């Protein structure tokens, strides 16, 4: 559905979801904050597609890994805040370990000791 823009690095879907879960480990946040956090944590290397963020958030919510609640933001505006559920925490751990193994394996291939 979302259009791919030229020159932009498209993230793998699973990777975006994993990073969303990771940022929420720091505490509940809204969609805008999540996007900003990911960009800042990657030192602005990763430019995420703000539009594709929301389908991912809703999918994670439907799967029961996130719960969502409307709340007042620091700018005194109504915003939807996402929070990691117990199941989401478990999911993050398995995803993290999978990612670690994948990254290590790719590292082995690319830069053999």
């Amino acid at each position, binding site marked *: *559905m*979302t*259009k791919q823009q030229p020159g932009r690095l498209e993230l793998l879907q699973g990777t975006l979801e994993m990073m969303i879960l990771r940022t929420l480990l720091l505490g509940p946040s*809204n*969609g*805008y904050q999540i*996007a900003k956090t990911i960009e800042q944590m990657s030192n602005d290397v990763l430019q995420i*597609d*703000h*539009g*594709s963020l*929301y*389908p991912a958030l*809703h*999918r994670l919510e*439907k*799967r*029961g890994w996130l*719960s969502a609640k409307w709340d007042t*933001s620091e*700018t005194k*505006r*109504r*915003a*939807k805040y996402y929070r990691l*559920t*117990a*199941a989401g925490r478990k999911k993050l751990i398995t995803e993290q370990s999978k990612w670690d193994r994948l990254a290590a394996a790719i590292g082995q291939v690319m830069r053999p000791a």
Partner: protein
Amino acid sequence: MLSWFSRRHRQEDDIDAELRYHSEMLAQECTDDGIAPLEADLTARRKLGNATLIREEIYWMNHALYFETIWQDIIYALRTMRKNPTFTATALAALAIGIGVNSAIFSVVNAVLLRPLSYPDADRIVLLLTTSPGGRAPGGSATKFNVWREQTNIFKDISAYEYNGAQLNVTGGAYPEQIHSIRVSANYFRLLGAPIVQGRPFADDEDSPGGKHVVVLSYGLWQRRFGGDPQAVGKTISLNGVPYEVVGITGPDFNTELDSPPDIWLPLQLDPNSSDHAQYFNVIARLKPGVSTTMAEAQLQLAAAEFRAKFPNIMGPRDGFGVEPFQDALVSDVRSSLLVLVVAVILVLLIACANVANLLLVRAAGRKREIAIRAAIGAGRVRIIRQLLIESIVLATAGGALGLLLGLAGVRALLDVNPGSIPRIGVHASAIGMDWRLIVFTVCTSLLTGLLFGIVPALDVSRADVATTLKESGGRSGSGLRQNKIRALLVIGEMGLALVLLISAALLIRSFWALRNVNPGFDARNVLTLRMSLAGSRFQKTPQINQLIRDAIQRVEELPGVTRAGASYNLPLEGAFGVPFNIVGRVPTSGRYDGRGWLGVSPGYFDVFKIPVLRGRLFNDRDEAGSERVAIINQAMARQFWPHGDPLGDQVILGKGYGPEFEEPARQIIGVVGDVHDYGLNRNPLPVVYVPLTQVTDGITALAARASSLAWIVRTRVDPNSVSTQIANQLEQVTGGLPVAHIRPMDEVVGQSTARADFNMSLLTIFGCSALLLATIGIYGLMAHAVRQRTQELGIRMALGAQASQVRNMIIFQGMRLALIGIVIGIVAALALTRLIASFLFGVNARDPLVFIVVPVLLGGAALLAVGLPAIRATHIDPVDALRSE
């Protein structure tokens, strides 16, 4: 639907608000960087992308996820089923029975009632009827047909076809063969939209009296006799020794919807100026576009007035003509008996549902922890109910698939053995089969069944309080008081339903036996019947036929094992010709007495069937064409028309005013014989007049030969089947090669007249037994579970000194209380419901006291057995073990 809309709207508003917030924050970011507000807004929108597209994507993703989770639930359900093989097998068996019987009966209903006739625009085809205050009857005579065919403003096409047709002998060619023929009027094929693969249908001049000898072949006969010869049209086929020209061949899929499809069609050749009132054919018509049956009936009243003016004294002043949709007419007499079976199978299904619901409740007790854990990790109640219902539906669908296969195979096997004289089921029930209607029906039934038996357990289990359940220790997370109450109610319901079914079945079984025990008025044992077609043969006139009969009877009676032989056009139980009569010296108000049974018989007829002579004498060889004209009447006629007087000495005139073929002088009544149930065992005998075959007019002989075939009847000293070949050979020899067909012992003819009752009875017996089995298993399951659940309590009772017998009686008392409540409810329901089957009963009251006592006692006995087993098991509980088990 409304809630679905509002939910979708709320969701979309939610997403919009979320996206708006995001976009405003992005814009804020830009303005903070010193970009103009308008441009900041644009940048923000660009960065976020198209809001509508995002909304759509989320919407579709949600749906995909929904189906994904349903799929997960299905997989989970299958896994649960595999983990509990005993539960699954029991539930599947109950469901396969419950849904299977429904699929089986639906397959018959589908083939007989729902499946449209295989003609184009079949709903426009009607059957013509003669109506009277007493009812409506199909059938046409030449005189009626000639009036009907003038009603061109309502009928697009009209055609007559013979009821039964005749067996014709194909001579010449590679081998002789007897084939089934039906005579039809010219536009029969056009009316039914019959495909003609070669040649043409009959032309109008071929359908007139004295028209050419032409035939239309069925596809099968064309393949068989002509090897599918493309040049067959124009060739001749020899029927009973007379050459006929083949003018057309019908397509292979021309289905006549008749129970015995013809091999060949001949033109009926009705005389447009005929005064023949004999009814021996049916008339169908295709309504003109825009003409309703009501309009047609109105027009036919005018036609009836016209007919009365033309032929006074044939139809009463309150009689008329009418139409009935052809399909309804074909299936009218089977519809009500199928509906009874439909009700019966629904009862079986309800019992099966109660049974499986009970099983689920038992199993649910063991699953409380699992459900509570699911609830604890965030599954909502709706989600849990959905998952449990999906489990039920998966179970029901599996049971339904099993049931469909079993039911279809079962009903086909049953119909193959006993077609129950049900129309439209085809040869060997070939029309009963898998089609989309049956599959849709079974799927819907399975889904509904799954919801029905799953909803109560699902609501019950999902109500569980998470905290208490999880705190309880695993083993004893038992079912509460309320759950036991639901289960008790289900068992009561099962008992009640089973009783209603069993009582209905028992009433039908009693009817069947009553029917079997009716004295038919004749002795069918050791009588062989054989049919011989005389149509178109050299035996057309009365003297020739009687010479033939005399010779044949003499030859057959010389055979060893044969005691007596005779001939007639009608066998007992197969009906007789209806011919009106007058009694000399009496003038009834309508001018004559209504057409009742007329039977032409040879002298041996009464001896063969051992029909007793009550007064006077029987026919003998001296009652010849030239001697005194005689008749014998039956007891019913004597009782009705000579309640106080003596019929012997009076004279009757038969068929006066019924057409020239029937005109004959008066006959002397010479005897009274016992009644024979000619119109079926369940009907009272009607007045019948017997006349010697030697003394009937040539006209009637020709008509009888055309409308029926000659029946030979032979009483044997041995098993009639053992001498049937010799008898058939003798008959063929003496007739110079006319083949005999339809060789049946008379017992079989009697059996066929009760085939429908037999069919209904065997099905209801099967359903009743299924119900009994399911209900018994249900109450057994409940009590066995109760005993298991109360092991500890029973242990304490016994430790405190309760006798084993006390414990046993307590369990029996508790179980039997439920059974008895169910039985009482069932008796009340049955008293109200059995009148629905009253019209199928014979010789037994719908509230027959014997049935209403014996059946509840039987069901109670079965329940006692089912309750007794767990009760005895309860007495074997070791108090020490029971107390330690906690």
